[in-house]
C-alpha cells in the first residue's frame, strides 16, 4: 500500500467520488481536501490495488502557474505599482527611487505606462512626479486570477506576455479522472494476497476479499529435470517394437570385430565401407580372437568363391546354434560409428534402429506388410518402396514416405531380405528367411514428439 495513503485519506477520497456523478479529477480532489496532488495520486493507486472499487483513467492537462516572482507580485503588487505608490505628491528624487527593491524595473514600466514623469532639470537633482491621480494594477489582477485557478479568463496574448516577464509558467500535470468502480464502496477492506492455513482453520476467508490475480503473467517454471528429446524418441521406438512383439538385442558392444561387422554380412573384402576412411579401426586392443572356428571357415569359403554394420549377425548366429529353429523378431536401437569429420549434416556417431524377423517362408510382401505396421505406429501411413542395393540383402528396398509438408516422397529407411550366402554358413536351416530394416533415430527428432 502507498505509504502516504492511510485508510482515512482513502475513505475521504471515496466520499468525494461518491458525491459526484460523472467522476472527478484528482487535482480537484487535492484542492478540496487541501493536500498535495501527489498524495492523491498515491491514494488513487492504493484504491486501484483494491480491485474494482474505483476506476481511474490517467490524463494529462496543461495549466498556468505563478513563478516565485509572480506570487510576490500577486501579494504585493507589480513593481510599477509599488513605484507609483511610493511617490508622494511633491515627487521623489530619482536616485532615492532607484534604491527601492522594485526601483529599476518599476521605474521603466511606470514610465512607459505614462504613470510618472522625470524632471531632469529639477533643482537638487532629477526628480520623479506622478502624472495621474490613481492607477489600476492590471498585472497584479491578472496574476491573482491565475492564482485563483481562473487563468481561463485571460487571453492567450496576456498569458504569453506574463510568461515573457517570467511571472507565469505553463506546466503539464498528470492527473486521474476518478469514477466509481463496479464494487464501489466508501469503506476500505484490506484485500488479502493469498489464502493461508490460518484463514482455513478459522474460517476467516469467508469475510476476506482477495486481491485479483494477474492472469496475463507467465507462470513460474517448474523445478524439474528433462529427458533428452532424442532419448524420448528412442523410448517411443522401443515401445513400438515391444508392442509388435520384438525382443531387444544385446547391442552393448560398441567394439565389434571386422568378422562380425563385415565378413558375416557378406560384405566383399573390397567393399568401400571397409576402407580406412569409413570405419574406425582399433589400435589397442588391435586383434579380436575366439571366433567360432567352423563358421569362420564357412564364411571364408563364401567369400573366396563367391555395411554398414548390421547388429543382427551375432544374434542370427546364436539363433542358428539352437537344436531346433524357433522363429524370432529382434530389434535394437543403439549407437553406430562412422569415421567422419563433424559438420552440420555429418555425425561420427548416430543411433541406428533395426528390426529383424527370422522365420520359415517370409516373403517380400511380409517385409512390406510389417514395415507398413511399424510406420503406421509412427503416424506414417503413405509408404512406397524403391529397389535398392545393399551388399548383405537381396532384394533390398528403400522405404519412402509421403511428406505432407514438403509435398514429396522422402526416404525414411532401408530394408531387405538377408542374402542366403550370409544365412547358410551360420547354420540356419534352408527355407528360413530373414527380413530386416533399418533407419536412423536422429532423422525423427524434428518430426515426432
Amino acid at each position, binding site marked *: 500500500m502507498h505509504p502516504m495513503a492511510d485508510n482515512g485519506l482513502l475513505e475521504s477520497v471515496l466520499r468525494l467520488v461518491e458525491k459526484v456523478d460523472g467522476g472527478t479529477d484528482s487535482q480537484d480532489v487535492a484542492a478540496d481536501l487541501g493536500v498535495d496532488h501527489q498524495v492523491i495520486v498515491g491514494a488513487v493507486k492504493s484504491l486501484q490495488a483494491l480491485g474494482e472499487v474505483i476506476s481511474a483513467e490517467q490524463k494529462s492537462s496543461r495549466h498556468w502557474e505563478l513563478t516565485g516572482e509572480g506570487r510576490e507580485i500577486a501579494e504585493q503588487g507589480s513593481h510599477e505599482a509599488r513605484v507609483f505608490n511610493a511617490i508622494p505628491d511633491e515627487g521623489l528624487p530619482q536616485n532615492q527611487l532607484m534604491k527601492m527593491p522594485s526601483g529599476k524595473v518599476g521605474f521603466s514600466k511606470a514610465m512607459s505606462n505614462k504613470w510618472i514623469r522625470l524632471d531632469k532639470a529639477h533643482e537638487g537633482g532629477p526628480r520623479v512626479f506622478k502624472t495621474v491621480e490613481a492607477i489600476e494594477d492590471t498585472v497584479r489582477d491578472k496574476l491573482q486570477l491565475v492564482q485563483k485557478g481562473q487563468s481561463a479568463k485571460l487571453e492567450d496574448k496576456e498569458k504569453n506576455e506574463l510568461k515573457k516577464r517570467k511571472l507565469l509558467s505553463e506546466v503539464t500535470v498528470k492527473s486521474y479522472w476518478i469514477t466509481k468502480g463496479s464494487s464501489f464502496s466508501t469503506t476500505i477492506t484490506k484485500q488479502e494476497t493469498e489464502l493461508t492455513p490460518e484463514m482455513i482453520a478459522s474460517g476467516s476467508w469467508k469475510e476476506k476479499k482477495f486481491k485479483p490475480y494477474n492472469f496475463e503473467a507467465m507462470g513460474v517454471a517448474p523445478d*524439474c*529435470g*528433462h529427458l*533428452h528429446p532424442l*532419448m524420448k524418441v528412442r523410448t517411443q521406438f*522401443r515401445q513400438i517394437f*515391444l508392442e*509388435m*512383439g*520384438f*525382443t*531387444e*538385442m*544385446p547391442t*552393448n*558392444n*560398441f*567394439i565389434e*570385430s571386422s568378422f562380425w561387422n563385415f565378413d558375416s554380412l557378406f560384405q566383399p573384402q*573390397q567393399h568401400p565401407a571397409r576402407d*580406412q576412411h569409413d570405419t*574406425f*579401426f*582399433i589400435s*589397442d*586392443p*588391435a586383434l*579380436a*580372437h*575366439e571366433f567360432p572356428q567352423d563358421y569362420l571357415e564357412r564364411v571364408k569359403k563364401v567369400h573366396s568363391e563367391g555395411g554398414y554394420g548390421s547388429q543382427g549377425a551375432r544374434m542370427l548366429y546364436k539363433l542358428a546354434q539352437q537344436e531346433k529353429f524357433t*522363429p524370432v*523378431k529382434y530389434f535394437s536401437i543403439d*549407437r553406430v*560409428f562412422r*569415421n567422419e569429420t*563433424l559438420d552440420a549434416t555429418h555425425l*561420427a*556417431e548416430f543411433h541406428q534402429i533395426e528390426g529383424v524377423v527370422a*522365420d520359415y*517362408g*517370409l516373403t*517380400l*510382401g*511380409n517385409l*512390406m506388410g*510389417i514395415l*507398413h*505396421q511399424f510406420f503406421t505406429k509412427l503416424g506414417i501411413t503413405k509408404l*512406397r*518402396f*524403391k*529397389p535398392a*542395393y545393399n551388399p548383405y540383402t*537381396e*532384394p533390398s*528396398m528403400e522405404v519412402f514416405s509421403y511428406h505432407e509438408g514438403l509435398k514429396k516422397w522422402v526416404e525414411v529407411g532401408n530394408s531387405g*531380405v538377408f*542374402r542366403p*550366402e550370409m544365412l547358410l554358413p551360420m547354420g540356419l536351416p534352408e527355407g528360413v528367411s530373414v*527380413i530386416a530394416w533399418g533407419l536412423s533415430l536422429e532423422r525423427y527428432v524434428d518430426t515426432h514428439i
Partner: protein
Amino acid sequence: MPTVSVKRDLLFEALGQKYTDEEFDELCFEFGLELDEITSEKEILIREQGGEKAEGASDVVLYKIDVPANRYDLLCLEGLVRGLQVFKEKLEAPRYKRVSPADGGEPQRLVITEETASVRPHAVAAVLRNITFTQERYESFIELQEKLHQNICRKRTLVAIGTHDLDTISGPFTYTAKPPGEIRFKPLSQSREYTAAELMSLYKTDSHLRHYLHIIENEPLYPVIYDSNGIVLSMPPIINGDHSKISLNTKNIFIECTATDLTKAKITLDMVVTMFSEYCDEPFTVEEAEVVYPDGRLSVYPELAYRTETLSGDFINKRVGINESAESIAQLLTRMCLRSEVSGEGDLIQVEIPPTRADVIHACDIMEDAAIAYGFNNIVRSTPRTYTVANQLPVNKLTELLRQDLAAAGFTEALTFALCSEEDIADKLRKNITETRAVHISNPKTADFQVARTSLLPGLLKTIAANRKMPLPLKLFEISDVVLKDETKDVGARNNRRLCAVYYNKSPGFEVIHGLLDRVMQLLDVKPGRNQGYHIQAAEDSTFFPGRCAEIFSCGKSIGHLGVLHPDVISRFELTMPCSAIDIDIEPFL
C-alpha cells in the same frame, strides 16, 4: 551410390519418347534408379564457381541419375537406355557376341611378362572394330571409363582401363614392368617425353591424377604396355601414351585392362565392350584378343559369358509373396535383361544371365529382378504370422526406469558422444592414459575421436561448458555405455553401463549429489548399511578435490565414486564454478 549425368533431350531421343520430369522420376523409381537432380552445365558452374565462369556455358538440361552400386551396366547413357527400353518392352535385350577378326587374320595379342607379378599381375584385352563416334558418343565413352574407375575399379587400385586407336599401333603388345627411370614416353595432353619418375613428380599437383599415384609410387617396377615397335600405350594405372590416343575419328579401338583382381578386370572389360559395341558396324559384336601369361597359358577375351540358371516359379512366388504363372515370371525376368523361358518340366524356368549382369550371383538376385519387374508397390502387403513374445534387454530396461526417475529428481538428461580425445579422459580428469583401460582408435579423422570414452564425466562437463549461460544450478545426468578393455571378451573390450550426474553451482553441493545417490539406491531397493546395503567411504581419486571424495560400496562391492571435482578438472573443462559429481556402474543391479 554412383551418379550418372545424361543430357535429357539425348536420353528422350534414345528412348524414343518424351517424358515430363515427374513421369521420368516415376519410371526411375520403379526401376530402382533415382532422378537425383535436374540441372545444366551452366547451373553447375554458377553454383561451384560463380556466375562469371559460367558465361557461355551450355544450358542444355542434364539429368543426374543415381544408379545402384552393383549395376555397372547402367553407368552410361547407352546402358541406361538399353535397360529402360527392355524394361518397357520396347526392345529385346541384345546378344553380345565375341568374334574372330573379320579378315581371318590373327587376333590382337597382349603378352604379360613375369615382372608384372609383383605390382599388377593381370591384364585382359579386346577390340572394337569399325566404331562410329559422334561428339556425344565419344564423351559418353570417356565418361563410362571414369565411372568404372571410380566404382568397380576402386579408384584404379583393382583395375585400370586403357583405350587406344588401334590404327596407330601394331601388335603384339607387351605388358611388362620396368624401373621408373627406364620408362620414357609422351603422355596424354603433354607436349614432350618424360620418364616415369618425372611423370610421378609432374602429376603430384594434378588435381585428378595425383589420387592414383600412391598405387605404384613405392614400387621398384612400374607397369607399362608397349607395342611391337616399342611405343608406350600406357603406364597403368596412371596415364596413357599420347601416341595411341583415341579421337572422334578413331575407327578401331584396342582396349586393355590391367588389374590386381582378375575377376573385376573381366567384368570391367565386358562392361566397356557391351556398352559401346552398339556403335560398331556390326552392332554388339566384339573382336577377341589373346592374352598370354608368363607361364605360356593363353586366354581369349572378352569373356562375354552367358550362363543359365534354373529355378522354379514356385520359388519366386514364395519368396516375393505373389502368385504368378511360370510363363509370366519368365516374361518379368526377360524385361530385366535376363532372357528366360519355361523349360517344360513343371514350373522350372531357365534364366540366362548375360555378361552385363555381373551383379546376379544367386537365385535371390533373380528373385529380386522378378519382384522389380512385377513392381515392388504392386506386391500385396501382408503380415507374417510369426508368433513371438517381446523381451527387453535387462540393462536397457533398468536404464529406462532410472532415466525417468533421475529427470523427476530434477536432473536433465544429456546425450554425449561415445568417442572422445585422449585428453578428455586422461589429462583433463588428472588421470594417466595408461590407467584408463581405454580402447584406442587407429585412424581417427579428428583428434576428437581418439578413444572410446571410459567415463561419462567429460561429456557432461563439456555439456555444462557449452551451456554456461543457463541459470545456475546446472544439474545434468547421463546413463549410457563406456568402453573398457577386457581380455576375456572376443574383441578384447566390453561396454559398461554407467550412471553419471553433475551438479554445478556457486557452492559445490556435495549434499545434493549425495542425496541423488540416496535416491538412486532407494529406487534400486538397496538400503543404507555396511553389509547388505550401500555406504560411502572416504577415498583418494585424482579427479576429485582431496578430502572431498568418497568411494561408493553396494553389498560390499565398489561401484563408483562421488565427490567435489578437483579445481584443475573444473578449469580444464573451461568451467568456473564448483562442481560435484557421481559416477557409478549400474550393471551390478541387474
